[in-house]
Structure formats: C-alpha cells, structure tokens
C-alpha cells in the first residue's frame, strides 16, 4: 500500500529560519543539528530551500554538499535554480530531487528542458500562490515577493503537459499561520493536475494533517512551523494518522 508522506521543510537564510506569509523570518535553529535529527528520526523525506539563493544569485553548493553527506533520507533541494547546470551540480553533491520555482514561471520551457534532461522523477515544480486584490489565486515568485500575473489554475493546465515529477503547492496566505492547509484550493488543483501534489503551508495541529488527507487525494504533506515551534515531531503526525486508519510508514 502506497503511504502518505510527511516531509519536514527546512528554510535557510544564513541560518535555519521560519516566517509567516513568507515574511518576519525567525531563526529557528542550527542547520546541521536539524539535519542530523531528522536523519536520526528517519523522516519520509526532507525539503531544503535556500530562500536567498535567488536574490544573491548563488547556490551554496559546498553547504549542500556538506549536509547531504549527513542525510540518508530522500532530499529535495530548491532555491536559485536558473540553469540546467545548477540542477546537475546539485544532483552531483547529493540532492535527490531539485525544486524549481521562479525560473519555471519565467519560462516554462526551462522546466521542460530540465524534465527532458534529468527525468521527471527528480524535478519538483514549486508554486507559491496567494489571493490577490481581485480575489484571484495568483502565482508569486522570488520567495513570494514578486507577483507574476499568472493565475494558478491556468498554469497548472500548462504544467501537466511538461510532466514534472511532483508539484509542491504552497499557500503564502496560510504559510506560518498554523491554522490548517488551504484545503479548498489544494483539492481543486489536485483534481485538475495529472502530476502528484505535495501540499504545503498552514499545518499547526495533528488534526490539520488528517483533515486534508480526508478531504483530498493528497499523498504528501510538507510542514515546517509545527515542527519548529511545537513539540510535535513527524513521527507524532504519522502515529496520529495511523490511529485514524491512514496508511503511513512507521
């Protein structure tokens, strides 16, 4: 039986951080300690994003090389991916999957080239969206700073043809608020997308995880704040889901 995955997300900005709505970043701990901890706890998968890589125009390869050596769980890396070489370099230092965000919105052909060269299985498309002034779901890039004018649903239709391995879908409005995932949107998008969706943004309680699994066909959930700011661990989430009859890896 295919299991629901719980993937902690680590955000890096000179240090490990977490914000609210992609703003007000707080330092939440030491990167290496956290990687070691998650490795020890054998989490299902780990996401790592360097949120300043795009702005600084540099991917910190040596940093990723160093901690990938510590990491035996499947590792997805994102932030500042602009070229096919960026992807190749990150795979070489030990990333298993690469997350592409702004570059794909700027040029969907880049996403296609990445999928053609490295295969869908290692390309994750990351999409950050929020409700704009016209009450539409609009995609934002550059860590949520720049509106694109692209509407979420229109883009998803285009993406299905390019076939990335997964879509990491993050609601900026729900991010860091810890009041639950944007179930309505995720359900809608998952229905129209041929590509598996990883839901992100808003998990704050054990029940938030169960709620979205119950109401959608999502098989992967990412979360950050709940693991940084509460005592709850990814294993606690899975034990809770298991008690509700959801298939998880324990």
């Amino acid at each position, binding site marked *: *039986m*295919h*299991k629901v*995955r719980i993937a902690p997300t680590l955000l890096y900005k000179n240090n490990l951080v977490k914000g609210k709505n992609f703003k007000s970043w707080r330092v939440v701990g030491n990167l290496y300690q956290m990687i070691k901890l998650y490795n020890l706890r*054998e989490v*299902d*998968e780990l996401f790592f994003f360097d949120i300043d890589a795009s702005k600084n125009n540099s991917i910190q390869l040596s940093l990723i090389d160093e901690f*990938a*050596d510590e990491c*035996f*769980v*499947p590792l997805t890396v994102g932030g500042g991916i602009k070229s096919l070489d960026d992807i190749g370099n990150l*795979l*070489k*230092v*030990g*990333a*298993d999957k690469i997350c592409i965000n702004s570059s794909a919105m700027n040029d969907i052909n880049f996403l296609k080239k990445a999928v053609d060269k*490295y*295969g*869908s*299985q*290692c390309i994750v498309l990351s999409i950050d969206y929020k409700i704009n002034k016209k009450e539409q779901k609009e995609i934002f890039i550059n860590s949520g700073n720049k509106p694109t004018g692209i509407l979420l649903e229109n883009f998803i239709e285009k993406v299905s043809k390019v076939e990335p*391995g*997964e879509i990491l879908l993050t609601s900026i409005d729900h991010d860091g608020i810890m009041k639950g995932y944007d179930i309505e949107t995720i359900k809608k998008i998952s229905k129209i*997308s*041929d*590509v*598996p969706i990883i839901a992100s943004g808003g998990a704050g309680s054990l029940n938030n995880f169960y709620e979205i699994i119950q109401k959608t066909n999502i*098989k*992967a959930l990412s979360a950050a704040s709940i693991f940084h700011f509460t005592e709850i661990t990814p294993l606690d989430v899975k034990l809770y889901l298991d008690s509700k009859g959801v298939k998880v*890896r324990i």
Partner: protein
Amino acid sequence: MNINKYDVAVIDYNTGNIDSVIKAIKYFNKSVILTNKQKDIDNSKRIILPGQGSFQFGMQQLEKLNLIDLIKKKALIDKIPTLGICLGMQLFADLGYEKEKTAGLGFIKGEIKKISTSLKLPHIGWNEVSFEQKNDLFDDLENDKDFYFVHSYYFDCSKSKNILAKTSYDFKFPSIIRDNNIVGFQFHPEKSLKNGFKLLNNFLKI
C-alpha cells in the same frame, strides 16, 4: 588477468543522482568506484547499474560509452553479482517502450511498460515490498516493509521464478527480480533507510 581492484563498480552513464548509491556502499566499508572505464569495470567484483530517466536514454548512453558488451560479459559469462536499481533494473529487460521501442540488455525475460492506473504518476514515495518467495537477499529483513519508489514504468517479468517480491500501486508489479547473480530493485535501496541498507548489504554478500 583480473585483479579485482574494487569491491563494487557503480556504472556512471549520465543518469541522475548516484552520489547516494556510492555513499551507501562506502557505509559498508567496501571499496567502490564510480566509473565508465572498461578496465575499472572489468576489475571489479560486483557491478551496480543505477539510474533514473528514460529507458531509451539509458540504453543510448550505455551504447555511446561502449559498455553493453562488457556488462553482458560480466553478468552472463563471468557471472559476477550484478545489481540494477530503478532504471538500471529496467535495462535488464528484453524490451522497453518508454519514448520508443528499444532493446534492453536482455538479462531477465520481460518488458518495460507504463504503469496503467487511475492514480497519479510517477508512483513516488514509500510503498510496501512483499516477498513472493524465500531468498538469501531477504536475510534479516522483515516482509512488507516500506521502500522508496520513484517511477512511472514497471518490469513486466515473464517468468514468475524471477520475481522475488511485488508491490501494489493499484495493481501488483515486480519490485525485486533475480536470476542467479543478476538482481534488480525497482525502488531505491540507498534511499530506503535501514531496510534498504539491509538489502544492499545482502547483495554485497552474494
């Protein structure tokens, strides 16, 4: 003269991330080389063919590197333990249908077909591996444990004696296959934590 310089040669044919395979082999204190040089491969006790990407691309790469005959010799004549992981396992088949109909290495009877399902593809994440028969690869390993999968195609294996384990994603497909010294894992043992490491360790003992 073969001097068996390395315990394991991991074949480098430009397909995806192999760093974690190397890391896992080193974990068992085995000497390992990532290589596409004939001499290195010929001088190794075991071969691992890793890989991600399409069947057609994988075969083209092996051909371009002029490795097909050597891999066949090592696996079929010298009969050294040969492991294929994910795409590597799929290349052991007679034929693949990804992109275009392409001939494979033909080590284990079968064809590579697209998973036919109403579920989303790729089949990605953790799923159970259920034994179909007893095997020394399963020493110290419990049945129905979870392993990490990423694939959209599966090995449609002609002979049930070659199918050691199956996994279900809407329908059951072979997740571990074997014919004597030749072994294939559809999942990534190097990313499957303790159970994956146990399996790799058992492969290193055959």
